[in-house]
């Protein structure tokens, strides 16, 4: 599998950026319910990582995982309609932004609980090994999830059974509002993961090519029976943890500004040159039209709220 072009990466990242801009507007005007966890500044990780996966590979992501969902190939219309609580959404309005599922694209769920989707991917990877179907599973989580017991149980078992899993940790330096040095006894995440007996690699998470490269290598290792890999993607959330957090009370403005200048979209746009603006404009338009379509979609029939607890 060849690496996507710079233009293709930018399109993916700009789509995520546009989606978040639209969602912010909708949230501020009260048309979007619930929490909104943005991934601004982190767009290169989903773009690079998902480019190394096949549609049939498994994925779980976090409540900040809509970029992965889109990059995995799930329908923008289905995702937007779900985020807006519409009947045409991926989950018919029952899941919302934190609970996106699309089994046809290997998406086993985004999750509202930190670290909770990690075991699912390890289990799906177990079935891939059982059936020898060559699939791999990728689970993305943040540096905060590294302190959840479930994540460590899952990492241990993936290494024990030599399962085709990529543990992709987005290290954006803050677990919600708490910096690493105040939440991690050992801030060296590679050491913590490699202690389970798997390769652990750090990568510049603001460069989609580099992310693609390391994930591709991990995917190849998994497909060939070589077991799991842990990848730490260094990145930065240039906005708050969620819509009500400005993100400035626990970080300096200088630090935020420095990362904004280093944002993956800025970096890639500079590399592409004048064509970048056009790509970004196109993504804006594409997403805006999708938002209009989603807003015009029907609301779920209230009676459906009481249905579907069991299959």
């Amino acid at each position, binding site marked *: 599998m060849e690496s996507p072009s710079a233009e293709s990466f930018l399109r993916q990242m700009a789509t995520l950026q546009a989606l978040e801009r639209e969602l912010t507007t909708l949230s501020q005007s009260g048309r979007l319910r619930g929490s909104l966890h943005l991934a601004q500044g982190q767009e290169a990780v989903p773009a690079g990582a998902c480019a190394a996966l096949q549609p049939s590979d*498994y994925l*779980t992501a976090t409540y900040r995982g809509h970029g992965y969902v889109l990059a995995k190939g799930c329908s923008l219309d289905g995702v937007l309609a779900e985020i807006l609580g519409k009947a045409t*959404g*991926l*989950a*018919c*309005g*029952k*899941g919302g932004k934190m*609970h996106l*599922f*699309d*089994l046809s694209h290997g998406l*086993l*769920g985004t*999750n*509202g*609980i930190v670290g*909770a*989707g*990690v*075991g*699912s*991917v*390890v*289990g*799906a*990877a*177990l*079935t*891939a090994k*059982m059936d020898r179907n060559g699939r791999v*599973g990728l689970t993305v989580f943040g540096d905060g999830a590294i302190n959840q*017991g*479930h994540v460590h*149980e*899952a990492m*241990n*078992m993936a290494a*024990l*059974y030599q399962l085709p899993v990529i543990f992709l940790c987005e290290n954006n330096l803050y677990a919600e509002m708490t910096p690493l040095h105040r939440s991690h006894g050992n801030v060296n995440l590679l050491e913590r993961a490699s202690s389970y007996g798997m390769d652990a690699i750090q990568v510049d998470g603001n460069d989609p090519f580099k992310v693609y490269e390391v994930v591709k290598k991990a995917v190849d290792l998994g497909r060939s029976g070589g077991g799991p890999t842990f990848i730490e993607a260094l990145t930065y959330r240039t906005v708050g943890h969620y819509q009500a957090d400005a993100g400035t009370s626990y970080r300096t403005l200088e630090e935020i500004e420095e990362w904004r200048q280093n944002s993956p979209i800025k970096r890639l746009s500079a590399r592409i040159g004048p064509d970048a603006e056009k790509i970004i404009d196109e993504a804006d338009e594409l997403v805006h039209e999708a938002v209009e379509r989603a807003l015009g979609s029907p609301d779920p029939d209230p009676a459906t709220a009481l249905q*579907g*607890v*069991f*299959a």
Partner: protein
Amino acid sequence: MREITFAQACNEALRHELQRDSSVFMIGEDIAHYGGMFRVTDGLMAEFGEDRIIDTPISESGFLGMALGAALAGKRPVAELMFIDFSLVAMDQILNNIAKTHYMSGGAAKVPLTIVTQGGGYKGAAAQHSQMLEALFLHVPGIKVVTPSTPADAKGLLSASIRDDNPVLFIEHKQLLNLKGHVPEGEHLVPLGSAHVIQPGTDVTVLTYSYTVQLCRNVVQELSSFGVSVELVDLRSLNPLDWDTISQSVTKTHRVLIVHESHKRCGVGVDLAAQIQEQLFDELDAPIGICSAADVPIPFAAGLESEVLPTESRIRKAILEVMGREV
């Protein structure tokens, strides 16, 4: 019909389902090489191999999360949780993830996952190895709860649980595992949500499940010689609940006692009593009785434990109270 133990009956159901459906596999602690703490998985690894009978580390949250992922990927996993008490370290996976995934996905995802576990007291296993925690799982929608009391029902309900397209918590009772009984050979299915009227009666309905069914049987026999006609109903599964059988029985006897081993507060008895008084208030001739564990942790010493858990004498007393008879 031949007699086998409750544990052997579960083993037969597992073997049968593993044979008939290649998507069924098992995952849990000490289930493969060792054959299970209570021998429920004895011999399965030899027959089905280590790929389908998988020993895990002591990581309940981890392997239940894996079972969920495997179910989403098309398998029909059976996860063994050695003690129901250990579910408490995995509640996020069970109740936030396994139970909710079908609904949260708008029906797109199915979770055909059976968690086989074992609970209950009377053995001096003390506060962290003696609990019946079914009420916790009934409170959160999305997981079925099955509580057999006989070897035959254990086999039939376990097969039905594994074939169900939903998460099921199948609770064995440690006092029942060595109980012998007649069990049909070959395929045997008992549908979830079907209560069993063990003994018809006219004076009072006793609703119970799991090990306390056996205690109630003895009491009911004894009371019949004193002219008290008890209708003894084994609920067998608590979600789904066989409301029709409950309703018919209450409409016949007009008096109800609910017996269970778990605690009273926010428990099954309180829940059933609420449903019965809401829907059958005019049928009742007496307040609904509940005989349950006292609301304290399960103590260790024999004399203390029997003070807390339902006993035959306590059940007898409770039945007579509902009857309005002198105790």
